[in-house]
């Protein structure tokens, strides 16, 4: 996975709280192989009307080139399905800006190069004011934890270790190779001091 420090793109507004993982990708699409792409399933039901037609007034439909979404609090709450992140990433989304994120969603996002940028109420209001009507060009600076939109500069927060991971495009399995010996030693110690922690032999 490629790391990134800055991103410039178009931001759209989805001013809804609790956009949960079941809305991000309904369960019925989750048996698809990743190689087939998940982008078409992003917010599948939310972006359609009762007849199944794409809603012209839905920001993602009107602006399919957008790469940044501003959303309400608790974005990505719910299930651990990483497919919710795949749907965003495969649809070209690089960052979601929101007052808060579901814990598992945020971790999954970072593991796929998607930035969960947390903003305070003031920051949210500033971005919303800029993008409420029309999509706007936005610049994201991961080093400075800064969003620039219109004439406004807004700070966001992200866990330091996550920012580092996004910037370097690190993969945890590669990183963990450096700790092989420590893991082996830990296992030996635990198997001696907590033998009960291994499943009992069964016939």
């Amino acid at each position, binding site marked *: 996975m490629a790391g990134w420090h800055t991103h410039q793109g178009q931001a759209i507004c989805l001013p809804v709280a609790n956009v949960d993982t079941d809305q991000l990708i309904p369960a019925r699409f989750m*048996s698809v192989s990743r190689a087939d792409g998940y982008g078409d399933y992003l917010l599948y039901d939310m972006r359609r009307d009762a007849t199944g037609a794409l809603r012209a007034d839905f920001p993602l439909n009107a602006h399919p080139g957008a790469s940044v979404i501003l959303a309400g609090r608790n974005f990505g709450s*719910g299930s*651990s399905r*990483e497919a919710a992140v795949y749907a965003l990433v495969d649809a070209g989304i690089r960052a979601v800006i929101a007052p808060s994120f*579901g814990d598992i969603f945020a971790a999954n996002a970072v*593991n796929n190069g998607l930035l969960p940028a947390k903003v305070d109420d003031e920051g949210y209001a500033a971005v919303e004011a800029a993008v409420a009507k029309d999509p706007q060009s936005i610049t994201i600076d991961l080093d400075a934890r800064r969003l620039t939109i219109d004439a406004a500069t807004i700070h966001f927060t992200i866990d330091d270790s996550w920012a580092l991971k996004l910037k370097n495009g690190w993969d945890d399995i590669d990183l963990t190779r450096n700790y092989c010996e420590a*893991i082996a030693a830990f296992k030996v110690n635990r198997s001696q001091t907590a*033998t*009960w922690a291994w499943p*009992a032999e069964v016939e």
Partner: protein
Amino acid sequence: MRPPQTMLDKLWAAHEVTRREDGVSLLWVDRHLVHEGSHHAFAKISERDLPVAEPGLTFAVVDHYAPTRNRSKIDAPQIARMIDTLRDNAAAHGLRLYDLDDPRQGIVHVVGPEEGLTLPGLLINCGDSHTSTHGAFGTLAFGIGATEVAHVLATQTVWQRKPRSMRISVEGTLGAGVTAKDIALGWIARLGTDGAQGHAVEYAGSAIRGLSMEGRMTLCNLSIEGGARFGMVAPDETTLAYLKGRRFAPKGAEWQAACVSWASLASDAGARFDREVTLDASEISPTVTWGTSPEQALPIRTPIPDPASLPPHKAEAARAALEYMGLKTGDMLEGTPVDQVFIGSCTNGRIEDLRAAAAVLKGRKARVPGLISPGSARVKAQAEAEGLDRIFIEAGLDWVASGCSMCVGMNGDLVGEGKRCASSTNRNFKGRQGRGARTHLMSPAMVAAAAVTGELTDVRPLLVGRVT
């Protein structure tokens, strides 16, 4: 002297292989549970040609896509393919598989405890957010995404920053017909679905001590609906009585050694939590959700709220939820007609849940159709041995095999568009039980009451004079 520690502190320290300078810990995973949805993770490790590091600590369960009828011949090819993929991965890596015909098959969070795979003092991961269920045993258990599942498969470890600690104390005695589900919906309604974000919740207090293991599992299961990736209850005699003699639980001298170790897991007196919340058990009543988020819940004898009366940041969501749910402000929740009912899921699909539902349904007829899917094949067998299946069938409800079923609809058990379902599950998200489905979350006894009257109903009058 060492400062007093929380149970979280102790569990964390016992699993920490190392901690990086940035404060993120590498944790040892004692049990890794996988299911059909783990296919992305298996694909990731096979791309890199990596083996499963600890096949003996990895257990595979068919649950999310498990058909609840006609299991021997699966009609839908995409469902058959998901189950076959898990079978192939389990075989390729030498994993113990709980397949559809296994008498121990069931929902992963029901099977783990039943098998004694879940024990106090362990760290358990699963690619499912309701992994917090296992915390009911004094276990560090949390849901992870596919990239993390691949990492656990490859290394038997997981990187994680230690969450903040939060204690929810529930003191006093629950009233008749009030359950762990009502405690959970109650605190989530009060604190919000992001109320415990970033925290590990420990449940404590006399009302929690008084809960069975089934009740504690329901409570810990729903922690994630309040934003907490972890929920936990300190192990006690109730925990030991549940586990002793379970298939994979320690035996003989190992059991004794384990009990000694587990006795020191509880939070020390005077341990400090980052957040403390106290609830009075006597103030909790049977609770149902009215919206599309678990925080949109109220006691059954309450009118449907007016969005204008809610805090501004919740008003818009409430308006949208009421529109989706087809409900009108000011109407009473009680008396809202339902189209169907569902009892099951990792939240409320255990034997005690089925007994509670049967206590209401015995000798009564359901006025609406419904599905009852036990949480495991073992729960099903137990219920049948107790004659609960007869009660359900005589009431007119469908008694089917175990799986995640209508909680998430992946196996094809769906609620129709615009239909209203009283459900013992965990998420009332838009479309969760099917496109356009309207879900009301509640306890199994409350679902049974809704079946009997055909509308959202306070179960308590229906329990008068009955043994529960």
